[in-house]
């Protein structure tokens, strides 16, 4: 196979893979006067205009349209946007609520300190790009991992199970509609893990949200 044939075969293979991007959100921080506020999130997702928007909502919540316990970025921004545009919501959430990372003594103090660092990182970010890629994103990912490590109970295991569930649900969505442009919008602490897991599957192509 010459170089041109190889390039053509690669192009065909790439075309057959569903493009998936993962965008991280900041829950209640979107209410604060930061560049990545609720309005910026709506504008960004409206601009990306994905075919399918995977949200961390359980199928039960979706069918009952029971959105009272959802984070503000879902309730106030993404669900209303999807409702009045062609963006189709795909619920990918699992059944069980995640335990909040916590501990007593020095571990508890460490968790509190790490949370403050993450909050500072996110509040001082220049926009969604800074939250979702680059050094700030990677550092925040390490801090989240450290918080899980310091916390007591089953937080690490629960996070792993939750992100496994989200990943498989995204794959199902992508396989049901391989030609769709899929945007996954979840809390920023899960982005890194989900992107990494999705990259291990041949039938999806993990793209940056700016290039979906």
């Amino acid at each position, binding site marked *: 196979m010459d170089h041109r044939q190889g390039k053509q075969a690669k192009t065909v293979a790439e075309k057959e893979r569903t493009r998936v991007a993962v965008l991280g959100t900041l829950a209640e921080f979107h209410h604060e006067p930061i560049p990545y506020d609720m309005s910026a999130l709506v504008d960004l997702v409206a601009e990306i*205009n994905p*075919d399918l928007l995977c949200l961390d909502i359980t199928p039960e919540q979706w069918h009952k349209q029971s959105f009272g316990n959802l984070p503000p970025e879902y309730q106030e921004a993404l669900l*209303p946007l999807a409702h009045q545009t*062609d963006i*189709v919501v795909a619920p990918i959430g699992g059944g069980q609520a995640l335990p909040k990372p916590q501990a007593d003594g020095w571990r508890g103090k460490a968790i509190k300190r790490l949370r403050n660092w993450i909050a500072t990182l996110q509040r001082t970010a220049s926009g969604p790009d800074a939250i979702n890629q680059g050094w700030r994103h990677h550092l925040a990912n390490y801090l989240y991992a450290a918080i899980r490590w310091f916390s007591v109970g089953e937080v690490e295991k629960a996070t792993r199970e939750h992100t496994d569930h989200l990943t498989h649900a995204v794959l199902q969505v992508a396989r049901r*509609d391989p030609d*769709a442009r899929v945007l996954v919008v979840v809390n920023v602490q899960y982005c890194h893990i989900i992107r990494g897991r999705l990259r291990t599957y041949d039938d999806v192509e993990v793209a940056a949200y700016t290039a979906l």
Partner: protein
Amino acid sequence: MRHNVSNWNRLLTTNLLIYATSNLHRAAWQALLEKQPGISIEGAVGTFKQIAGIWPSPPVVVLVDMPLVQSELVSKIRAIKADYGLLFLVEKYDLDEIVAVLRAGATGLITHDTTVAELSRSIIAAGRGEIVLPQELATQALIALARGDDVKNGSSVVLTEREQEVLDLLARGHTNKNIAQALFLSVRTVEAHLRNIYGKLGVSSRTEAAIWAVNHDHTLSGRTAANR
């Protein structure tokens, strides 16, 4: 522009003409709809002549807010703007009125007590030529429209399970977005299924496909994902 995806939005924008005889209503609709995603207001007019003088690029929807919905007006607009979506605002739904204006060429009707989000969705759907009707009256309206049509033999038509689901939902008066949401598919994929369905049924529009489905009891099959 910071993100390189802006062209998508430009391609998907529905151009809207507001047609209302009252100045206040025109201004109100304009103010209400100009910031809605996917909609670009191309003009607000008070007379039929003014509509004829505006030529926005497709897809175009004329949102008509008049005290009375007259079939003659629908036919007049349709005669000069064959490819426009014509969406009429009404006080309440009346099956006879719905059937009459659909026969005259309207794309759909929506009541004044709808939400802004619902109106936006309806405008976008009308821009694609979709029938916009309340779901509780859609099947009845289609049956009324189909009355008198010859029922072609549909036994030789073979639809895939997905196509049957799409056709069932279409015949229940769902828009493409609602069909897509019920089946967790993209709107573009639903449109592709509809093109295949039209080909297999030998029809050229969603109205004909919906009437075919009503005539062949598709709305009663209960096989849609939305019902499961």
